[in-house]
Each structure stands twice: as structure tokens, then as C-alpha cells.
């Protein structure tokens, strides 16, 4: 299981970084999504991998899973979900306002044109 999860985190991080380095906004959104998946999985494994163990501790001496990373991951999932939604909205708005989904800043000519409006 360790190898499987480690590989999954590694592959998703690599793919996420690769996609994030591209020019188009939507590829970047995909990359960031993969990166947050990798983050969540990574955070989850930081409580050590324990299958079929209770997360609520009744008997401290018995084997149990660490509940804290699970709650951390839950928070992280909610936040990254919201952030991705927001980023998509902004990407769509940027697409319609500037005819293209590139992420580069406008050149000086375009900026001057903006201030003349």
C-alpha cells in the first residue's frame, strides 16, 4: 500500500507541476486540481497508513487510526474545492475580457490603452 500511495502522490504532483507550467489558463486549472489532489492524499498519509482501524479512540492502548489528518484533509478539500471554483470563474471572466486564455500580463501598449478609456 505504501508504494501504491507514494506512486500516486508522485505521479499526480509531477503531472500537476507539468500542467501548471503551461501557458493556457485551463491547463493550469487542471494542473492545480491535480496538485491539490496530491496534497490531500499526502496529508492523509501523514497520520500513517492504517487499514480497518477505528478513528475514534475508546481505548488508548488499542490500535487506532490518527483522526487529525483526516479532519485536516477534510478542511483542505473544502478550501481547495472553493478555490478551484473561484479560479475557474476568474479564468472564464479573463477569457471573455481579453480574448484568449493566456496568463501573461498585458503589454504596456494595452495598459496605456486601458488608462485612456
Amino acid at each position: 500500500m505504501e508504494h501504491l500511495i507514494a506512486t500516486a502522490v508522485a505521479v499526480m504532483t509531477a503531472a500537476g507541476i507539468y500542467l501548471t507550467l503551461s501557458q493556457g489558463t485551463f491547463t493550469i486549472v487542471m494542473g492545480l486540481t491535480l496538485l491539490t489532489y496530491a496534497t490531500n492524499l499526502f496529508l492523509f498519509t501523514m497520520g500513517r497508513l492504517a487499514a480497518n482501524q477505528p478513528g475514534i479512540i475508546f481505548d488508548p492502548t488499542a490500535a487506532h487510526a490518527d483522526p487529525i489528518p483526516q479532519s485536516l484533509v477534510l478542511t483542505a478539500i473544502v478550501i481547495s474545492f472553493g478555490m478551484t471554483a473561484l479560479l475557474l470563474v476568474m479564468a472564464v471572466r479573463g477569457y471573455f475580457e481579453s480574448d484568449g486564455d493566456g496568463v501573461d500580463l498585458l503589454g504596456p501598449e494595452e495598459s496605456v490603452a486601458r488608462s485612456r478609456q
Partner: protein
Amino acid sequence: MNHWLILPILLPAIVAPLLAMAVRHDIVLARVYSVGSTVLLVLLGLLQVWMAFDGTTRTYELGNWAAPFGIVLVLDRLAAIMLLLTAVLGLLVLLYAINGCDRRGRHFHALFQFQLMGLNGAFLTGDLFNLFVFFEVLLIASYGLMVHGGGAARTRAALQYVIVNLIGSSLFLFALGLIYGVTGTLNMADLALKVPQVDSGNQALLYTGATLLLIVFGLKAAMVPLHFWLPGTYGNAAGPVAALFSIMTKVGAYGIIRVYILAFGPQHGEQHWFISEWLMPSAAITLILGMIGVVASRSLSQQSGFAALASMGTVMIAVAAFTPQAESAALYYLIHSTLAIAALFLVVDAVTIRRPGLGDALITGPQFTHIGLIGSMFFVSVIAVAGLPPLSGFTGKLLILDAVTELQGWGWIWAVILGTSLLALISFASSGSMIFWKSTSVDGNLVAPQSPPIALPMVAVGSILAVLFLFTAASPVVDHYLDATAEQLFDTQQYIHAVLGGEELASS
């Protein structure tokens, strides 16, 4: 239990949804709510500084869960002064914004309050994961504020800003995961106890986590090589928004001061390895690059953005020294530069809306309305930003220069700080004369289509400058407080004791 501690978070958290839902169609009522809430925050800030003055570290256990299992809010001198700074800055920027800027997009006031909530939370929390959550709160509000007013260039800049910060958030989580995996805690005080106990096999993992955390804070503080987002973001944001953002970079500096002195601080010996070594050159290069940007800028807002970058460089030089004296100087300059940069951004905004067709481009144009008043405001804020006497920028730089003399190679640091101050002076003098002075040589008058109000905006800018004057005049008192703050920061035992209580300390 002291419920005063949670009010700076609770108050904007209650007012913001009210603003977004109940009074969203009534801009006058929204302004009243927003200003009212921020005035209360200033009073709360004063109260908290007064409470922290005696040097006790107060804690507030959320839901009555004891640390390290529950989340604690911690109020010490550092947190109190940052809360007061945030509230004062927020109030004065808000005064400027209600002249009509807040009507150019929706939900300005609600986002503003959420931003203040995130900032206050980040300064108060004593838990690393909670710090992450408050970072996200202030970031998501700042994304909304960043696109306030709209426009293609601003949306592009905002998109870059969001992407950079989302990557930063992912790194933050990776860092937290590593630190939790090795130490089993995310409470800052508990972390300070657990870090020295980490066995040698796991030390590499701990270092990796700590370094990733440094990268995240460095990204927020816009330190080289993570500074690329700052000039574009600040230069393209609306004036009042950029002015409010002048405290956002300081959150990164706060994070470094708080976490690294407490948990990975000099008292732990070897764990201290990476911090100063990396931070000092990076801070110096930030300062140099920022000032080169100031010289090379082609518009006032760009110039102010680079000035914000340079001011972060100066603050971080002092932070990187990691001595009580230097931290005190760093905090002094941090407070000064937040207010000075905010004043500069507001003045630049006032210039921009009065020069139709020219905007804030560094081109000499004909005279515009209220050029004398705005010009003198520009003059005073630039004196503050460049660090000339009689304002606190000068005192702050002196304190930093004095504090770094203990370090090796302090000559270089002196050369960088003094040289860049000269550059700032020259380039701001040149842009001031280009925009204000030489305008008399051009015939005609520039008249903005709808004449923007002058009274309230100038009161706002004037008040920021007045606060700066007051800050300079009260230097002995402020210095006394900040020295005590730095002393308290380095007395980590007292912080740990306040958060975890005596028994836990003895048992571990």
C-alpha cells in the same frame, strides 16, 4: 476565559455576511456598517495593545478544548500591535474608499471585512493549520478585492495572483503534512517542544517541512526569488485595494518572525541552520531589485508596487538578523512601511483619476484639479517611503543599520540600504517633478469628466500621514514597546508556558 481575544475575528465575521446579504443594495448603509465595524476594530486593537502592555501572554481556547488538542488564540505583544496596525490601516483605507471607489464593483465592503477577519485571525492564532485556514480566508477575500473595478489588465493580473497563491497553499499543506508527520503536532507552542526531540532519522523530513514553510511565507512576503507576483498585482489593483494589500506582505514577515523564532529558533541550535543563511541574501536582493524597479518604472502605480517590494526587502534584512534588537527594528520599520506605502498608493490613485487620458503614466501633462494639495501629499508620503527625516522611515532605517552591526559583513548591508535609499530619493524626486512640478510648463488644464470628491480622500491620506508623524513623535514609547515585544518573542519558554500550562511543560 478572556472573550476579548476572539472579538477581532468575530466582529468582521458577523458584519461581512450582513453586508453581503442584508444591506447589499444600500451603499450608504453598507458604508456605515463597514466604517462602524472598523472603528470598533481600532478600539479593540487599542484595548489589546493595552492588555498586552504588561507582558502576559493571554490565550483563548476555542470550544474550551485545551492545547495542544484544541485550537488556541494567543495574544502577546506582537499579535496586539499587528492587530492595531491592521485596524488603523483598514479604517483609513476605508475612509478613502467610500468616496466612490467602493461603488465600482459589488460587495466591496463585505470583502473588505472578510479580509480584515483573515488578517486578524492570522495574527491571533497559535496553531499552524489554523494559520493556513486564516491565510485562505484573507486570500479569498483579496482575490475578490483584486478584481474590484474590473478591466482586462486587472483580471489578468488577478488571475496570476490567484494561481501563484494556490500553488503557495498547496506547498503550505505539504509543509504542514511533513511537520505533522514528524512531530505529531501543529500547535506552535507544542511544536517548539517537539522539534528538539525529533530523532536524527527524521530530521531531514523536518528540515524539508520547515524549508517548504519558509518558501510559503517567503512567497507571501514577496522575497526574491518569489517576488514576481507583487509588482503586477499591486500595480494593477485599485488604489485603495493596493493600499490595504500593503499589510498582506507583512503577514508573510509575521509568519517568519513568529514560527521560526518560536519553533525553529536559535535556542534549538542546529535547526537554526537554514534561516539566516538564506534569508539575508534574499532580503538584500529583494531590496536591490525593488529599487531598480522603482527607478525603471514607467507609471506611478508600478513605482509604488516596486517600492512595496523594496520595503519588504528592508524589513526582511532586519528579520533575518534574528537578534532581539534587530527584530524590534524590523517591527518598527514594518509598521512604518505599511502605512507609508498605503499613503503612497492612495495618493497615486488620487492622481490617476484626475488625469484622464494620461492616468498614472510618468508623462508630464497639464495641471489637474487640486494639484497643489495632492502634490504636497505625494511629497510627504514619498519622504516617508524613501526614509528621509523627519519621518519614521529615517528612524526605522537608523534602527536597522544599528541592529545589523553585530553581524558579519554588515558593511555590505549598510551599503545596500543606504545605496537603495539614494535610488529611491532620486527616482521619486524625478517622478514628482514630472507629474507635479513641470505641469506648469504645459498649457491648459486637465479636467476629469466627473469631478471626484477631494475632501474625504485627502482627510484619509492626511490621517495616514498624521499617524506616521505621531508614530515618529512617539518613537521612545513605541521603541520601548517593540523592544519588550522582541524580548517576549525570544523568551519562548514563557509563550509555551502560557499556551500549554505548567504541567505539560514539566511532563515533556
